[in-house]
């Protein structure tokens, strides 16, 4: 699903990421861990082509996104779902619209949209909140909406950058359970986090970054 080769990302003279080789297979669940500033977000932004590598290649689904024409970027992002630490919901739109706008913009029929949004909200455990505004929801519920939006178009890849960074431990665990469910349905999931309890609990592949380099990459691993 994802392959990086001799990929370097520099901001000015600062080397934010230096990855000689990384391979994430279809259907995997991967934790990306490391201290703040280690390069986790940079690596993810390269994957959804929010950043271009200074050097090297970034293959997503067999395509080098570094060479992708800018007009093709929306097509790339439609096939993945992105979940953010700060949720990034449209605060003056209700839950339904927040989830629906992505597939609405694709010209899907209203019936299909309704079906898919309901399905996504059910998966994240918010089947009754379609009419609520984000401001009327708790942090955990807002992140569930964020996940519903990310999966509504049935992506093959889901990227979550510190999805539980703003949530308490109990809620964090619930969110991670949902992401594991999404993974079990066949979506490749990559989660950046520095929450040790979560990483230790799920026993998935753990890739540890330090100052932009991968210093550890173990299956069924734990934090640190």
């Amino acid at each position, binding site marked *: 699903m994802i392959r990086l080769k001799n990929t370097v990302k520099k901001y000015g003279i600062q080397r934010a990421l230096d990855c000689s080789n990384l391979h994430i297979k279809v259907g995997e669940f991967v934790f990306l861990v490391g201290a703040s500033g280690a390069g986790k977000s940079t690596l993810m932004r390269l994957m959804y082509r929010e950043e271009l590598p200074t050097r090297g290649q970034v293959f997503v689904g067999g395509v080098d996104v570094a060479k992708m024409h800018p007009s093709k970027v929306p097509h790339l992002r*439609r096939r993945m779902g992105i979940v953010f630490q700060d949720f*990034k919901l449209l605060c003056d739109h209700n839950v339904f619209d927040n989830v629906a706008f992505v597939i609405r913009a694709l*010209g899907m029929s209203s019936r299909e949209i309704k079906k898919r949004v309901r399905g996504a909200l059910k998966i994240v455990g918010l089947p009754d909140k379609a009419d609520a505004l984000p401001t009327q929801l708790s942090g955990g519920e807002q992140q569930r909406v964020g996940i519903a939006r990310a999966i509504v178009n049935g992506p093959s890849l889901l990227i979550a950058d510190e999805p539980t960074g703003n949530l308490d431990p109990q809620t964090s665990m619930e969110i991670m359970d949902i992401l594991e469910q999404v993974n079990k349905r066949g979506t490749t999931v990559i989660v950046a986090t520095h929450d040790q309890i979560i990483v230790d609990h799920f026993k998935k592949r753990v890739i540890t970054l330090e100052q932009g380099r991968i210093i550890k990459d173990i299956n069924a691993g734990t934090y640190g």
Partner: protein
Amino acid sequence: MPGLMDREFLGATINTDIRIFFRVIGETIKGIKRSHWMNLVIISTMAAILSIFGCLFRSGLFVSHFVDEVGNAIQVSVYVKPGHDANNLVKKFSEYKNIEKIKIITREEAWKDLKTQMDIPEINNPLPDTIRVKLKDKAEVKDFIKTVKNLNSVEDVQYAEQFADKVMGVGHFINIAAIVIVIALGGLTFSIINNTIHLVIESRKKEIEIMRMMGVSDWYIKAPYIFQGIFYGFCGAFFAVIPLIALNSYIKKFAELFYIGIDANSSQIVVLSVLFMGIAVGALGSIFSVKKYLKV
């Protein structure tokens, strides 16, 4: 069977495109609704400027029409020396390319005319035969007079020279002023739309960013802002037409006062120009704004 498959596939994409188009329109309407009070300000400003443009344009067209009519009414009067035949002169004038109309008024006709207008005692007719000449191009008048004056069968030539010069000068000035004003007002309306759409984009930065991240296409994000600009231009132009209708009836009255016909097509030309200018400036202003401030 592949042919059938293709057709079904094509049908599906066309349906999708139509839906996307209508949803973009829907997004535009939502965006306009969310701009509440700003809509009023922009549309009334646009209407004010466009109506100034329209009224000036309409007046300019009328004045140049007026100038034309009056200028056309100015004729060269050629007085024939007694004992010469007016018809010979007319034949000679006919070689002159620029003549639009030519008419002989015999001394008898002129005398009769004069007598019906004034109380004149019974004396010998002192008037000469007169040839009234109307030229196609007013600029040729001076040349014509010079040539004609030198003919020995011509007694005298009369022409309201100063008046004609003034009328032509006014017409010329109006043409230049119209161009300057159109450019100035065009620039003004353009920058109003441009800045408005910039403000709207600025206030939705976060939302635009989210849509980009979710893979919403370029055109779906941008088009509503362009349509919003076009909407403002169109509405402004629409309301600018109302004062134009009032102005047109004034012009009609004024024209009747001078016994000249109204310039028939001008009213439609001006309305169409105002509409065109509103829509074009609305589109251009928002396209520039989107190009500059909404980099996707």
